[in-house]
Every structure is written in structure tokens, then in C-alpha cells.
């Protein structure tokens, strides 16, 4: 055995060589980005359940996939997925090619691409959500609708900044403040932007306690924030059981493209409420949710290959995402103020900001701001109504964008 030749072969195949040749510096930057994301997830606790997985997926892909280098051992192959999406390529829409030539993360990513993971996450969210506050106060749905304003403003802004319709729709949905919905829509419309959009969506969701309060204080008066709301009526078990069936029938008939998300959300909720499927409800809320979160996080992180992520578009997405979040909050608050006026001061407009669907973080922020203005104020349950309405609202917004741009 020629030791020198073997060493040279090892060096040629090594990632260290790739890091310092050609575009390897981009991978180096992405490795640093992944370390920052890990820090934010672990130390700052920014949506750690997903962000740690996304950050590690980002690290893995940028350690193993180098443009122009040997990609045989890469965990995720950008080129394979480009072929998958190219109508003129032999591997167009061929999962077989991915299974045959892909790495571990390519295979896990099939679940994202097929829309399986986001839908299963929605099933878990449905099983964990009590829609009682929304059923008791159906007006909350107006706040959930109003808080989708950021989605469409960011969509418009993205078009103005030169993105295509598909890309703008995917960027806009960040304003829905719903990670699975954003991932679901982006994989269908603009998969090349998935990494940036998912990271922006989850980072801003984690930053809601910092983003929303200044806007809430700016748009409401002290008197409005002090409003103590009356206790909502008690919702019967039968109503809670009928609710998911009605919502599924109505929303899916209105926008069939929402079927995977709304269908799974409502099935999960029916399992929770019907009282005869406790085992399934428990599994979906815990075991299944955790398993899917593992796969979703790591495979979304894998889409942040350096040659795709490091572009001016990523910066634009981050700015547009923040804009979307802010305007969604504004939309909810404005309709909250209208409801305050129309109800003769019985509705606290702060619950409007909970219309962005980040459950239950946005509702908690409403509660905290309400208590700052009036320590005897308990807005949490009132804010949960718009909060869960926002989940349905963002799914409808995604369904509309999917129907228009698919």
C-alpha cells in the first residue's frame, strides 16, 4: 500500500479540502450560521423543539454537500431535488430516484415534500387544542381573519421586491405565524426557499413576546387595555364534538386545497373531544408529534445548503417575514379596536393580536399586556379564541394561495 497515495486520496475526498477550495467558504459561513441557530435554540430557547433540529440539519448538510465536490456521501442532494422538480428531466417527480441515489436526509425530506409531516403536526396541534373559547365566542373568528393581513401585505411586498407569484405567496404565509402551514405551502410552491422561510417563521414565532408588545401599546390606549372581559359561556361536550366535523366539512368544501391541513387538524381535535379515543389522542399529542418533529426539523434544516441559502433573497425574506408578523398583529389589533367600539367597551382589543396563530404564545402575550394595564385582568381564555381562529385563518389563507398559484 502506498501510504502517500492513500493519504492523498483521503485528503481529496475530505470535507476539509472542500471547505477551503471553490465555494467552500459558503459552507463555512453556513456552519457558523448553524452554530448561531443552535445557540438561539439551546441557550435562548427560541422554539427549541424545532430550531435545534433545523440547526443540526443545516450543520449536517453543509458538512457533507459541497457544490462541485464529491457529493456521493452527502446526506442531502440539492441537485437530486432540482431534477425532481425539472419537468424535462428523466427523474421528474420520481421518488424512486431519490430513494435510489439520495442520502438519509433526502429520504427524510420526502415526508416534507409530500406534505406528510406538516399535516401530521397539524393533527397533533388539533389533539392539543381546546376550541372551547372559540365556540363560546365565535366573534373571535373575525380577529383570526383580520390577523392574516400581514400574509397578504408581505405577499404584495414580495412582488414589489421582484419575487415571482409562487415565491411571494410562500414568503407571505410567514405572517400566518404557523410553522407547519408555512412549510406545507412553501414545499408546494417554492421549495428552493424552504430553509429561509422555515427559519424566519420559527425565529419570529419565538420572538413574538418581543415583536408584539410595542405594537400593542402603540395601537391601544391605557383605557382599552384595562378592559376586563366577561366570562364566556360554558361549552357543552356535544358542541365540542360537532365543531371539528362542521369546520372540516365547511372549510374543505370552500377551499379543497386546505384538506390536508384542516382535515388533520380537525381529526386530531375530534379524537381529543369525542371521549372514546383517548389512546389515539394521547399518541398523536405526544409520541407521534415528537417523532414527526424530529423528522421535520432535521429535513427542513437540510434544505439550507450554502449555495441556496446564502443569497440576497434570504435577507429579503427575513425582512418581509418580520413585516408580515408586524402587520398581522396590527390587523388583529385594528379589528379588536373596532369590536371594542361596537361592543361599547366590553371587548379588550389586546385579544386581537392573538389572532396570529402562534398557539399559545400570542395569547400569553395578550394576557401579559392586559395584566400590566390591570392586574385583575385575565385575558388568556378570551385570547385563546382568536388564537385558535388564527390557525384556521392561516390554513384558509394558505389554501387560497395554493389554489391560485399551484
Amino acid at each position: 500500500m502506498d501510504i502517500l497515495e492513500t493519504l492523498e486520496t483521503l485528503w481529496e475526498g475530505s470535507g476539509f479540502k472542500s471547505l477551503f477550495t471553490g465555494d467552500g467558504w459558503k459552507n463555512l459561513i453556513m456552519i457558523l450560521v448553524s452554530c448561531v441557530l443552535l445557540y438561539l435554540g439551546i441557550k435562548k430557547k427560541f422554539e427549541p423543539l424545532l430550531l435545534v433540529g433545523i440547526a443540526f440539519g443545516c450543520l449536517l448538510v453543509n458538512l457533507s454537500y459541497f457544490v462541485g465536490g464529491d457529493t456521493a456521501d452527502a446526506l442531502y442532494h440539492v441537485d437530486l431535488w432540482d431534477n425532481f422538480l425539472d419537468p424535462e428531466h428523466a427523474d421528474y417527480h420520481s421518488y424512486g430516484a431519490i430513494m435510489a441515489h439520495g442520502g438519509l436526509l433526502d429520504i427524510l425530506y420526502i415526508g416534507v415534500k409530500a406534505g406528510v409531516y406538516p399535516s401530521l403536526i397539524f393533527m397533533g396541534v388539533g389533539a392539543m387544542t381546546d376550541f372551547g373559547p372559540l365556540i363560546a365566542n365565535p366573534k373571535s373568528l373575525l380577529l383570526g381573519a383580520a390577523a392574516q393581513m400581514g400574509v397578504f401585505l408581505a405577499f404584495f411586498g414580495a412582488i414589489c421586491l421582484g419575487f415571482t407569484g409562487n415565491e411571494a405567496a410562500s414568503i407571505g404565509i410567514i405572517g400566518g405565524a404557523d410553522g407547519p402551514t408555512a412549510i406545507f405551502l412553501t414545499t408546494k410552491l417554492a421549495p428552493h426557499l424552504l430553509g429561509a422561510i422555515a427559519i424566519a417563521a420559527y425565529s419570529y414565532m419565538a420572538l413574538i413576546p418581543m415583536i408584539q408588545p410595542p405594537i400593542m401599546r402603540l395601537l391601544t390606549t391605557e383605557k382599552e387595555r384595562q378592559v376586563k372581559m366577561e366570562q364566556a359561556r360554558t361549552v357543552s361536550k356535544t358542541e365540542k364534538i360537532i365543531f371539528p366535523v362542521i369546520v372540516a366539512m365547511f372549510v374543505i368544501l370552500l377551499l379543497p386545497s386546505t384538506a390536508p391541513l384542516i382535515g388533520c387538524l380537525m381529526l386530531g381535535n375530534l379524537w381529543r373531544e369525542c371521549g372514546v379515543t383517548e389512546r389515539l389522542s394521547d399518541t398523536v399529542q405526544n409520541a407521534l408529534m415528537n417523532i414527526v418533529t424530529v423528522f421535520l426539523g432535521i429535513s427542513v434544516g437540510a434544505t439550507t445548503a450554502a449555495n441556496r441559502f446564502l443569497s440576497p433573497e434570504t435577507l429579503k425574506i427575513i425582512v418581509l417575514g418580520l413585516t408580515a408578523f408586524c402587520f398581522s398583529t396590527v390587523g388583529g389589533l385594528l379589528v379588536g379596536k373596532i369590536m371594542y367600539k361596537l361592543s361599547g367597551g366590553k371587548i379588550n382589543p389586546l385579544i386581537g393580536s392573538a389572532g396570529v396563530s402562534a398557539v399559545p404564545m400570542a395569547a400569553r402575550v395578550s394576557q401579559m399586556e392586559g395584566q400590566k394595564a390591570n392586574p385583575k385582568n385575565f385575558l388568556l381564555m378570551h385570547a385563546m379564541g382568536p388564537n385558535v381562529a388564527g390557525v384556521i385563518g392561516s390554513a384558509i389563507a394558505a389554501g387560497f394561495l395554493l389554489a391560485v398559484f399551484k
Partner: protein
Amino acid sequence: MFDKLTLAAEEATEVATEAATKGEKLSIPDAAVTAVFGYAVVFFGLVILMIVLYCTGAYFKSRDAKAKAADEAAKKAAPAAPSAPAPAIEQKLAPGSAGHVKLFDVPDKEAAMIMAIVADKMQTPLNELHFISIKEVK
């Protein structure tokens, strides 16, 4: 007026769909119409859902009110026993109540666990204890 708006929205949707399929960029006016139309669709969907929820809520509220009225009527119709003291609160037995033990708001599994803990703490065999009722203190 409404027809014109619907047509404009349909045209905008067609333009948007065509642009997306071709990978072209949308014009700013088309994007504005698509955004406004999309926001309107979200409102439309959730307003209709709100109406449906109000209808079902009204039905259940009226049903509950009827049941309550029937209960009260039945109570009034029943002969009053002046000498017997009325129970402070009438509570419905929880499912799983069996034998002499009356369970209020306590599932049978939790009741079994409570009885086992009491027997263990008292160092007395379970079959020597007589539980009359178990009630959750709220």
C-alpha cells in the same frame, strides 16, 4: 357592481395562476388585487363559519334552557318533604359509580387509586374499610 368585482377578481386570479405556472413575475396591480381578494376570501370563510357557530350555539343554548326548565318544573311538581332536610347540593353521580360508593366528578380509576392510597396510609386492608362517597373538592 358585484359582478364586475367578481370578474376583476377572477381575471386577477387567472393572471396570477398563469404567471405562477410560467414562473413569471406578477404585475403590481395584479398582485394588489390578488392580495385584497385573498384577504376577502379569508374573511368570507371565517364569517360564514362564525354564522354557522352562532347557529349551532343558539340551538344548544335553547336545548340547555329547555332541559333546565323541565328540571325545575319536575322539582316543583315533586311533593316536598318538610321534615327532611334538603341536600345542600344535588350532584350527578359520575360514570363508574358502583356498589355503595358514590363518586362525584371522580372517574372510577382515580377512585380506585384514592381508596388504595387511603388503605395504605391507614395500614388497614381495603376490604375492612367502608367508603361512602368520593368527591372532588374544587
